[in-house]
């Protein structure tokens, strides 16, 4: 019984191929389609035949019919294209004109933002929704703003956390190792309460290889007020991370040490590559360290209060956080070599668009 059907199918294919060869226009092709693929065509009549077959034979026969259907549909579409194209050529009478319109248009002078700018803007947009202002500051800094004001006096062992480039040892002039000096400068400028994020280039004495760079970008945030607490820090940062990486990520807070915050925390998200199962990007742990944060240390407030008494640590509290922008861009765009950001190869730069791709990016 099944041999019988396979034989029939073979015949049908041969016949259909023979017939379609002679077809010249759409009307004829439509007739052909009805005959083979239509409601009372071959395919459906075969399908009906199967239903009366023994159960064991049904799957094999079904497969054969699907194959047939594929062949016939292919024949149909190929012919349709052929007819459509020849039709256009005949109507216009100019073969050349049809040909030329298949060619690409002239490329305009394209231009793109750097991926660091793009990711920075999307991060800023999230903080803007929470009412943060944006601040920058000098890259050449003094020892005071980069270290001492941040509760890291000279000879403090914690200074080893930041390998620093110096321009003048005796005057303590250096290239800032983080954007935290902007936080100090902003506190000197505004009375609490306020909230800002600080962005900019930072410098650390690191080699230039696939995972290190002597120059990188940082974004830090600062919120000071009269009753800001650790739960607020968690709330603001979890909101930020979910907006940036998606609502499904998990966020983990663990203790850490920074001289300028207490309590201090290190914040990780579940790995965006392996979803927390463990892979090479997260070193098998399932977690990616993203942020350092904490409640601002009373010593930091005391340093500001010397100039602006409203910063007395008895009166105000605040939280601060910081993260590397390159790291976030590398995770978000799966970039495995930090040097790509600084070679300025046009093949790299033209892959990132401001208004596409990410759930939170807003048109300029």
């Amino acid at each position: 019984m099944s041999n019988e059907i396979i034989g029939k199918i073979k015949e049908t294919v041969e016949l259909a191929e023979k017939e379609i060869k002679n077809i010249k226009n759409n009307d004829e092709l439509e007739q052909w389609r009805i005959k083979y693929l239509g409601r009372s065509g071959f395919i459906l009549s075969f399908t009906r035949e199967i239903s009366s077959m023994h159960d064991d034979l049904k799957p094999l026969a079904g497969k054969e019919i699907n194959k047939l259907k594929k062949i016939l549909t292919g024949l149909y579409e190929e012919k349709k294209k052929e007819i459509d194209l020849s039709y256009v050529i005949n109507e216009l009478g100019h073969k050349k004109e049809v040909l030329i319109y298949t060619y690409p248009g002239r490329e305009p002078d394209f231009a793109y933002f750097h991926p660091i700018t793009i990711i920075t803007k999307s991060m800023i947009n999230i903080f803007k929704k929470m009412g943060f202002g944006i601040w920058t500051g000098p890259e050449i800094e003094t020892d005071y703003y980069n270290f001492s004001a941040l509760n890291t006096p000279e000879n403090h062992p914690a200074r080893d956390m930041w390998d620093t480039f110096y321009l003048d040892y005796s005057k303590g002039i250096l290239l800032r190792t983080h954007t935290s000096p902007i936080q100090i400068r902003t506190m000197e400028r505004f009375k609490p309460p306020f909230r800002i994020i600080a962005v900019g280039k930072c410098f650390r004495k690191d080699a230039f290889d696939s995972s290190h760079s002597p120059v990188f970008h940082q974004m830090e945030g600062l919120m000071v007020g009269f009753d800001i607490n650790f739960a607020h820090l968690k709330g603001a940062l979890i909101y930020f991370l979910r907006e940036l990486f998606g609502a499904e990520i998990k966020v983990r807070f663990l203790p850490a040490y920074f001289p300028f915050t207490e309590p201090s925390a290190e914040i990780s998200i579940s790995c965006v590559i392996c979803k927390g199962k463990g892979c090479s990007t997260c070193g098998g742990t399932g977690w990616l360290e993203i942020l350092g944060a904490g409640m601002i240390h009373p010593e930091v407030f005391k340093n500001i209060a010397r100039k602006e008494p409203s910063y007395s640590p008895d009166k105000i509290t605040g939280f601060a956080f910081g993260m590397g922008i390159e790291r976030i861009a590398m995770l978000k765009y799966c970039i495995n070599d930090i040097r790509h950001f600084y070679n300025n190869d046009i093949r790299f730069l033209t892959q990132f668009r401001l208004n596409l791709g990410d759930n939170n990016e807003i048109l300029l």
Partner: protein
Amino acid sequence: MKYSYEGIKKYLQGNYSIGDLKNFLERLGLNPVINSFKNFELEIPSNRPDLMSAAGIAKSLLPFGDFQFCFPEFQISHSTEEKFPVEIYSLQDCYFYAGRVIKNTKVSSSPDWLKQQVESAGFRSINNIVDITNFVFWELGQPLHAFNKSILDSGIIVRKAMDNEQIITLDGVKRILNREILVIADKSRTVAIAGIMGGINTEVNEKTTDIFIESAFFNPFLIRKGSKFLGLRTEASSKFEKGIDPQMIIIALDRCCRLIEEIAGGKTGPLVLKGDYKKEKESISFSITKLKNYLGYNIPVNFIKEVFNKLGFELSDDNSDVINVFVKSDRQDIVYDVDLIEEIAKYYGYDKIPEEIPEVVIKPTEDDSAYLFLDKIKEIFTHLGFTEAINLGLISREEINNFEMEELKFLEILNPVSVNFSYLRPSMIIELLKNFQYNSAYKNENIALFETGNKYFLLDNIPAERMTLSFGVMDRDDLFAFKGKIEYFLKTYFFPEPDYGTYLEKDEQNTGIYYNIIVDNTFNLLAENPGKINLGFIFEPLSVLLEKYDLQSKKIFLAQMDLELLKSKGFLKNFFDHNKIPSIPSIRRDLSLVVKAGPKSDWGYIVQFLYDLESKPLNIKDKIKVFDIYYFSDKEKKELWEKFGFEENTDIIGVGISIYFSNEEGNLTKDDIDKNVHEIVEAFKKINIRLRYEQI
């Protein structure tokens, strides 16, 4: 240092698995990683020297469960009365110095268990005595040092080194010291760099029988400074610079001596003690309400008190909101009440504190005008077809030399990471040319890049930075197309015509041609500050420079503009009322001119000349545009010199202009226009500008 599960288990008894241990260490923020020898490698923060020992780690884990801290009981045999004199010359550098003599000991290689123990902790096994000092350091966190006593000349002296004093340390390196370094010496020579490394002259070896064990407390800052100066960091120096537990000095010394008696044999002498370090028992006042407000969560009081108790912190035992907490001497990181708050939050678990979005008064925080300005500039330049580049800003001396820039003002990094990144860029175009080189090497064509950032220089001997814009094209524009973009940028956003004109001033240098970008409002009668501003330059590199970058045969223009000048000028505001658009089209006439080079042939002059003509063929609403600039061939020049009676070899160029006569009233006739054009053509003759196809 490294710790194994079994190693910790000896000091912390209780029911916990290796997985539990990893979890506890994680919750303390120590990022435990188990290496291939099943040892935990930990990241100990620099404020927690107490965690740099097995006992310290065990103590810190007590609040995680129902655990007991245990430590083996021991007793020293005191079998010799031999003492060894110790003198401290500067008490502010060595707070405390303890030691004991051990006589008739037998130095040999360590028993297997000890060898294994020190090696798994990360030390190299040397001999039983050195291994025991390292083992006790690992166990209790107090660095110890063993001297070969028979070589020591009559006593120990703790003093500052002299300038250029020398010592060969145990690693065989000759070290040259200075007055800021503390040393251990005897009467005749230096025998150790205090807290950093011992000297080879008093090394304990197989022949040694009598030893002296040192257990001390040195000034952390001095150790840190010394170790930095010498470029020599050891486990001991790294512990001393962070701070040791003064309570542990004698315990560790005795533990060490007892282990030597047990393993190597020998007779221990009485305790030698110098220094008078005493720390008052201080308390921190701790408010439970503040903890609640600070964390935004109410952690139960029972939990708080239990953690303090298990950490061995004594509490004033009243039930009020504010309690006095007496912190143990090894916890030098706890100074403020917020440190105690962190301690509680840590053991409670940061993850168990529920998050909350802060409720705030809507008080908008203003943005930095510099950020907003740069953001807008970036937007404009991408619209102009330039892709944004970001460069490090760190370059080599060679790169500066390539451009032959003015000396003196460069900023050099005193401790660079490599010669390639040893200077801060004095100009933003240097790296842009490097970007073109990179792109060209990969056959990327038709490139336009811009960058915003800082250039750096020395100003009155002080390092300074200045917000700057650079941009450039490779195989895209000719000079006039490039200049056109600059003019569009300036007149659209900063310097509107006709109040301002912009022009270039050519300045040829060895490496390329600079065209200074000048904005000029000298002719604007209403200007408050009439004058010329130099905003930056266009740079056209010559082949001598291009060859160095493998860019010969590339058509490159680079430009740099001062953004601080532009920012102080500020973006133009949209007008309150826009200009009415005429409903009647203007009338256009094109003229093909031959312009003879001379003092009266620059474009600004010509335009002014036309508007100033007495018969007013042009009024202020009429517009003139250049649609073509044409360089004549030699043959054409010859014909034109002859035609207009110009001297031979006069420099002439062809300029095509369109004049748009505004016709707002709609009453201009063809005759009016012809008359105006005729007047213009006649006036042009006076300044040696002629119609190319003029009938003579």
